[in-house]
């Protein structure tokens, strides 16, 4: 292949933003404040692309990272390395813990749920990264697998961030603990959608939507449709 997508940062301008999430509520509810909340967002740099297999491989090589428990960890890799054809696909089968190690190693962090929405919707509060209408030609959705993170340039967000709708879900920094449960939130939807009403809703989700994902640990927290991107505070 020979051409790997490099990490790039894009500045996210600071603005006031009304954060509000509206999404399908499964049984069990989603125990957090969904707004509307007037917040200050932006003023940081964000990954232009989700972290790819190649980027994560580089991280492991540079950091020597080994998860405490490796169940399900990078299970789509072979012999400790990604398949060459997958180099520019978003890295998946990593846990929130794995992702946070990656971010910390590079002096970054994962965006919060509020930050992620602003990154995708922009100051004009677009419904989808590219505009207010669904357009399945601008993202990888209802397909058979992941695509390279730069495959849909027309689907970029107002800040120029790629792949914020569908392809792979993106984890955010939030871990909510209500005393009984631990869960995080997934953003953007993904190419895959379960075949039954009772499956968690995948597909191309709008910017103001998220999915509650209960955490349990080990392989249960590593999904082959879930990746992440990072942000870096402006100096």
């Amino acid at each position: 292949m020979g051409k790997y997508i490099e990490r790039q940062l894009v500045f996210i301008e600071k603005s006031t933003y009304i954060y509000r999430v509206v999404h399908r509520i499964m049984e069990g509810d989603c125990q957090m404040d969904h707004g509307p909340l007037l917040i200050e967002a932006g003023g940081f740099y964000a990954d232009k692309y989700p972290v790819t297999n190649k980027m994560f491989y580089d991280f492991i090589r540079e950091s020597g990272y080994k998860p405490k428990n490796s169940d399900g960890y990078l299970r789509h890799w072979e012999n400790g390395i990604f398949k060459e054809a997958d180099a520019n696909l978003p890295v998946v089968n990593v846990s929130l813990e794995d992702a946070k190690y990656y971010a910390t190693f590079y002096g970054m962090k994962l965006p919060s749920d509020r930050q992620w929405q602003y990154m995708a919707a922009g100051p004009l509060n677009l419904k989808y990264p590219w505009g207010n209408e669904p357009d399945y030609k601008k993202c990888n959705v209802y397909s058979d697998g992941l695509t390279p993170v730069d495959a849909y340039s027309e689907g970029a967000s107002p800040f120029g961030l790629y792949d914020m709708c569908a392809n792979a879900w993106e984890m955010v920094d939030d871990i909510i603990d209500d005393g009984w449960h631990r869960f995080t939130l997934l953003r953007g939807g993904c190419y895959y959608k379960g075949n039954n009403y009772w499956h968690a809703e995948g597909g191309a989700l709008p910017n103001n939507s998220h999915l509650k994902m209960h955490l349990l640990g080990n392989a249960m927290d590593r999904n082959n449709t879930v990746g992440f991107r990072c942000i870096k505070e402006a100096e």
Partner: protein
Amino acid sequence: MISHDQNARTILIQNQTLSAVINYSCGVTIDELNNRFGSIKSNCHRELLNLELCGRQYTSADFSVKSVITGSDKTRELATILLQNKTLDLDLRIHFLNNKKDTLNIIIQVADYYKDGLPHKMFFHSPFLADFELNGKDDSYYYPDCFVKSRSGKKVIRPVRESIAAYDIKLPLVVCDSENKIGFSLRFPSLSDLLDEGSTQNRNIMLTKISSGEELKNHRVPLAADNTFNDSIEFEITGLHNGWAEAFERYREIWSSNYDFSEYKKEDLRWFNNCAVHNFTFLYGRESFNFDSKAVDVGKLLESGKEFGGYDTVTVWNQYPRLGVDQRNQWDFHDDFPGGREALKKMVDEFHKENVFVFLPYLPWDHGDDESTNTMGDNLAELIKETGADGCQLDTMESIPESFRKKLNKVRPGIVLTAQKHPMKKRPLEIITTSWDEFWDTECMPQIDVLRFILPCHIAPALSRWCRTEDKKLLINYAVFSAEPIVIWQDVFGRWMPYSAEQKAKIKTWKSVYLNNKYAYQCLSPIPLYPVRAKDLYCNVFRADDGSQEIYSLYNDGDNDVEGDILTLLDSTKRSASIIFGNSRVELKGEKLFATIPAKEVVHISVR
């Protein structure tokens, strides 16, 4: 006995419970239909039917009698009257089928030859049915789609399913005298489940939906006749001498006569009968999962269960609503559970050490593209084999492939199948021997589940998952009133919905009472909504099959305590009465029971 007087144009039909005179001199009328246990003349001079067609009403008198045939075979007698209206291009065939014992079936068949070459809308109404009575005054009516309504107007009998009609249990219309003794049971034998207007010729199902006197008076049933004489409407009538209790028992007998309940008699499956408090635990919560050790904390869960009297079974749930984020299916989730299937096996072993049975879930709707019924059954059997679990919770599955039961039987004996909903049809009810009595009505009292009384060997613990504190009080009353085990489900897929200490204590008491009197509560012939003499008081009766004990479960839905003579015993030879649940006083005077039942409480009185 059937006697045809061709001169008078009447037919007399008699059996042990009924006597009827049918007159076909001008259409078809019922001259009388009497209960032979009494001396009252009932249902005199009633037109049998009206048809509404092309905006006009027709009675049977608008048809000419083409032929009348009477005869018998070794077990039944038959009178058939053929009616014709050439203008309408309609034939009616009305049968009176007497089983020579206790029952008369009136079968109405319509053949429509489509006078314009087109099927027109047609509606049926029976004045005979609309005015069906015993005495004409002071009669008690029990309507088929819930005869009793609470003070708030809610139906007290809940059908097998709340939202759909495709179940086989359809209660009769019962009319009794004021003493609840002499009366009639009128059943609508139904062969079609479809409620859609015009979907099938047999429209009895519409009549099974009658739930009030007004609906009875004004019934109007769409018919979808074609040019064949299929059954359109049928009344199956029996004379009663012991009122509602007899009618219910008769119905249970008729309904169950089509079933083979041998699965319920299997000794290896009967461990479930000794269980009173069931737990459902969502493994993504601290009720049962330790996030530090990443393992199920069996000891912690069972310790918390002691407040309820101890959990007898635990259903562990690690899938929905988590499934669907990626392509992993339910089988993968067992593999990916921290520690994999070995950890689940270890967990099951720990529960077994504490004499607690374990159910694992099976989600019929979650299957990968490459799975078939066969592979799903294999995967389920393998899971049960590998983990040592005792049963399968079939989720929303209301039926099961025959192969599943066979595959599980090969794993080992004693694997119990249960489901979140009652099975509705014959074979599923025969092989799924338990299910949850789950409902969505959070204000569930006074209410009973009809299946609990029709098929009492199908033990179904009570549950309404979204009950809050006030509703949970009703839920506990509901379980106790119908003498059901209960499912304790506090972590509803990520939402914590706890019981209060007082409620836990009440369940603990109920468990003890239930198990100590199990043989009465699990009797084969419980009677729901037994007649009582106080307003807003409801009663279910559980009779031990050997006759040694009767338990009267009483619920006072009123705002004030009920005191005094509340009911007449089923068995007048009983000599002693005692309170076994609730706070009350009781005294037996002859066959009459005097008691105090506190407002909004359930009391169980054991009579021996």
